[in-house]
């Protein structure tokens, strides 16, 4: 099984080699499709054999010797409850993305699919790596193909968009790299006989504890990188831009997979390593998340371009995920994890659908459409399901995630304020407003433009690539436990351990030694008194 995991990660690179020798565009498309389908097929045993009762222990682990001499940087990959679903989502979307680009990409076909394959390997590596440096390497690796995807095959304003995307992400991740190296040395001194170590399993464990002052800085450095990637308001400005200019396939991968690296990083690294900072900063982050939810929704409402509207709706939806994560209770975090998948499916589907209509009409302006439902009924059905899923209609996947997240936010002890949930809920209502309004303007009403009368309905390829996505949208909506079971145990363990670690770190700090800002931020004296009171009882 370990081999299978590695094969899944690197199989797409095989296509890269093949592209060097194949010059025929059609052959290239078929190779890409076959390789991504194979990748998905190979990854299936990973989920069927997954032991969800022990999901907190990484499974299928491959571990190598040190990659860099003197620094204990290892090649460690494996899957656990946090990463399994995202990993599977990535392999699942592979063939769908290839199919979506089948006819719409006409220039430099080989290079296009080569970039997609590289992106696939990079994304799979991000979710599978259990070493922080390895995670960083894959994290950065995904930037290059996306940079070219937007830059070469993107829209009119692609160059500015892709540079903005690249530099934004790079600044965040480089600062994270500094923090990461610091953690490596610090952990080495604390738990590994002075040898640099970045093995996640050690760093997240209860032995390695970081003092409050360092935790603050490290948390800020790590979370900055992830907030930019998510993107959390106010770091979101690159996203609508990149999304609008990216080709359909790029948008789908960006929305479904790459944005998740941010939220995934927050829960995998920040929570177990910096529990105190996580708790103390939670209300502030939740505030930004709620602002993002409402702001994203309001801006989406006034968009004239369908793709931009979907892009801003991403800002809003990712706000929910962050809100759920920082509720820091089982139900909220579970909701966030399932919402990551949901957003990947529903927003991915929306981008696919927008791409299909763009291929036909070469415009995405809402005002250019109207009354399409009568002309292209099959398209209308798929578009409607994706729209409802994005709104969070009960019975479809979006509802499950948002409901759990809002429940979590209501009951969260960390946030301790129901207004987060109340304002967050308005995001659901606003989503209905902007999505349904857009849907109505595009699909219903009289046909205003002559060109719209002769649009062809979806062909077999397009139906074929949307149907699997729709199946999962409904499946998650009806039986969410089939999916949440994988992470449930791990989330419980993670939260428990984090709470325990947090108290241990607090107990071992001496308030007199801390600078006054840290005392104020962590309310050390009050918390310590409380903790000691609990222990005496």
């Amino acid at each position, binding site marked *: 099984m370990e081999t299978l995991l590695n094969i899944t990660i690197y199989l797409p690179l095989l296509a890269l080699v093949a592209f060097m020798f194949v010059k025929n565009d059609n052959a290239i498309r078929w190779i890409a499709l076959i390789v991504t389908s194979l990748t998905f097929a190979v990854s299936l045993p990973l989920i069927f054999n997954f032991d969800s009762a022990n999901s907190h222990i990484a499974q299928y682990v491959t571990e190598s010797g040190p990659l*860099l001499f003197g620094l204990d940087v290892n090649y460690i990959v494996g899957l656990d409850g946090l990463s399994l679903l995202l990993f599977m989502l990535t392999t699942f979307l592979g063939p769908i993305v290839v199919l979506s680009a089948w006819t719409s990409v006409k220039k430099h076909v080989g290079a296009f699919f080569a970039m997609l394959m590289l992106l696939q390997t990079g994304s799979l590596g991000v979710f599978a790596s259990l070493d922080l440096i390895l995670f960083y390497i894959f994290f950065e690796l995904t930037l*290059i193909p996306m940079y*070219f995807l937007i*830059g070469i095959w993107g829209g009119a304003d692609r160059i500015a968009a892709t540079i903005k995307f690249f*530099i934004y992400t790079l600044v965040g991740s*480089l600062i994270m790299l500094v923090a990461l*190296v610091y953690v490596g040395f610090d952990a080495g001194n604390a738990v590994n006989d002075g040898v640099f170590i970045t093995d996640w399993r050690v760093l997240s464990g209860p032995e390695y504890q970081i003092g409050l002052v360092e935790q603050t800085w490290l948390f800020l450095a790590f979370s900055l990188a992830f907030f930019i990637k998510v993107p959390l308001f106010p770091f979101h400005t690159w996203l609508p831009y990149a999304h609008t200019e990216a080709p359909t396939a790029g948008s789908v991968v960006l929305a479904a997979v790459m944005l998740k690296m941010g939220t995934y990083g927050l829960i995998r690294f920040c929570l177990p390593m910096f529990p105190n900072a996580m708790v103390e900063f939670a209300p502030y982050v939740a505030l930004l998340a709620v602002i993002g939810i409402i702001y994203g929704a309001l801006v989406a409402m006034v968009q004239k371009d369908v793709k931009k509207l979907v892009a801003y709706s991403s800002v809003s939806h990712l706000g929910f995920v962050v809100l759920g994560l920082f509720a820091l209770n089982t139900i909220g975090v579970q909701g966030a994890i399932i919402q990551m998948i949901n957003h990947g499916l529903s927003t991915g589907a929306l981008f696919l659908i927008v791409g299909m209509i763009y291929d036909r009409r070469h415009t995405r302006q809402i005002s250019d459409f109207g009354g399409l439902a009568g002309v292209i009924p099959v398209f209308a059905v798929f578009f409607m399901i994706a729209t409802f899923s994005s709104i969070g209609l009960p019975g479809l996947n979006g509802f499950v995630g948002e409901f759990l997240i809002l429940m979590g936010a209501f009951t969260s002890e960390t946030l301790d304020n129901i207004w987060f949930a109340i304002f967050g809920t308005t995001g659901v209502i606003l989503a209905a407003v902007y999505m349904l309004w857009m849907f109505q303007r595009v699909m219903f009403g009289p046909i205003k433009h002559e060109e719209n009368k002769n649009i062809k309905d979806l062909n077999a390829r397009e139906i074929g690539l949307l149907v699997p996505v729709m199946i999962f949208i409904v499946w998650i909506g009806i039986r969410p436990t089939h999916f949440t079971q994988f992470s449930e145990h791990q989330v419980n363990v993670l939260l428990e351990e984090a709470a325990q670690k947090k108290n241990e770190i607090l107990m071992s700090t001496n308030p007199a030694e801390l600078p006054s800002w840290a005392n104020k931020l962590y309310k050390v004296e009050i918390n310590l008194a409380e903790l000691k009171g609990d222990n005496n009882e």
Partner: protein
Amino acid sequence: MEILNDLLNYLPAAIVAVGGLVVMMMDGYKAKSRLIYQTTMFFLAGALVIATYDLLYQEVGTLFSDMAASGSTAAFGTFIVVFGTFFTVILTHDYLIGVKHNYPQVYPLLMFCTVGMIVLATANDLVTVFIGLETMSISLYALAGIIRDKQLGVESALKYFILGAFSTGFFLYGIALLYGATGSTNLSEIGAYTDGSMIYWGGVSMLLVAFFFKISAVPFHMWTPDVYTGSPTTITAYMSTASKTAAIVALVLILERALPYAADQITSTMAIIAIMTMVLGNTVAMVQDNVKRMLAYSSIAHVGYLLVGLAAGTDLGFTAVLYYLLAYSLMNIGAFGVVAYYEKNHDVHFNNIESYAGLGYKQPLMGILLSVFLLSLAGIPPLAGFIGKYLVFAAAVEAGLINLVIIGVLASAASAYFYLRVMVYLYFKESKEPVKLMKPLRVYSFSLVVLAVLTLYFGILPAGITELIASYFSGNGLAIVP
């Protein structure tokens, strides 16, 4: 017999020196330029094989009555220098024919320059350092102006010469003062001195100024952009990699062996110069429209990263610096090689970034190669440039220089802008005028591919080479008793 043994351990330098003399004679007897080139390559290939052998197996020791060292860093420096020269000569031959200035004098000059670099990188005595530095520099002055009828080239040669001579003065003065303070020019004997007198510090600072000039650290960098832009492109590649490698290896040796006492106390000086070098190099590179000049400023910035490792001053720092030199040589020779290829298809003014529009699709291999080298220079994983930066910054974090590292990574993020800008023109823009590109010679593209593959290899599997380098600093590796 000892002299014979010493010579055997000094074989790469000896081969290159003899080769230089031979090709000089051949030029005197009006041999064909192609034959001279082949002879040069023959000698260099021999030297490369032996340098590789020495890198792996040579024992640590001193040669020629403690004047030079063998093994460890010396073997490493020799290897990079010979390796860099080997590829430079391949690229230079083709380039000079392409720009129609095929002067055979370039080969003996390159060979003598390489001898100087090897002497510099293997030195164990300040006098040897001086000899190496001068042999290298004088050849470089001539090489910079090798295209005699190009005004920019001659100007750059003269500028380089005048400023270089000035820095040599500093260097000699520094040696004199250090001799006055410590009574020796041997590195280890100077290292035993721990009494910080005024004369000692004067000597140290003079020495450092000279080295900062040679490696073009800010504020001693003024000559670099002009000289790098004016020189023939492949010679620029050579200057920015091999000569820098030799000078920095020597600097590492001097800091590690001769000035351990001073090295502990000049951390903040090093850090400030590193910050200035990184910030200036990267910011000025951002506004350059000439690709060659952009690479010149970028090479200044890379010296800044190297200085971060030196500022850390730990074993990990020195290991990082040596690894970085290897990675930097690979990617920088490669990048200049592709630039030279584009240039030789047209004329020497074909370096403006505008003229690169759409070139990536003309000869796809060359476009991909340039992208790989530039991404590596930008420090994007999984290329060698990333591991280099990572090691350097990791060493500085370990030494507690967090602020320095944060400035460094931000400068590095800024650098992504101008490296990516080249790719924007290569791939994202359409060319306005039809540009014709000749198919590159097979040996030319093959050597660039080798460099790219090595860049990738050392980026993905750096374990072996880092282990090798780290062993130089693990204590017993450097125990050279005078």
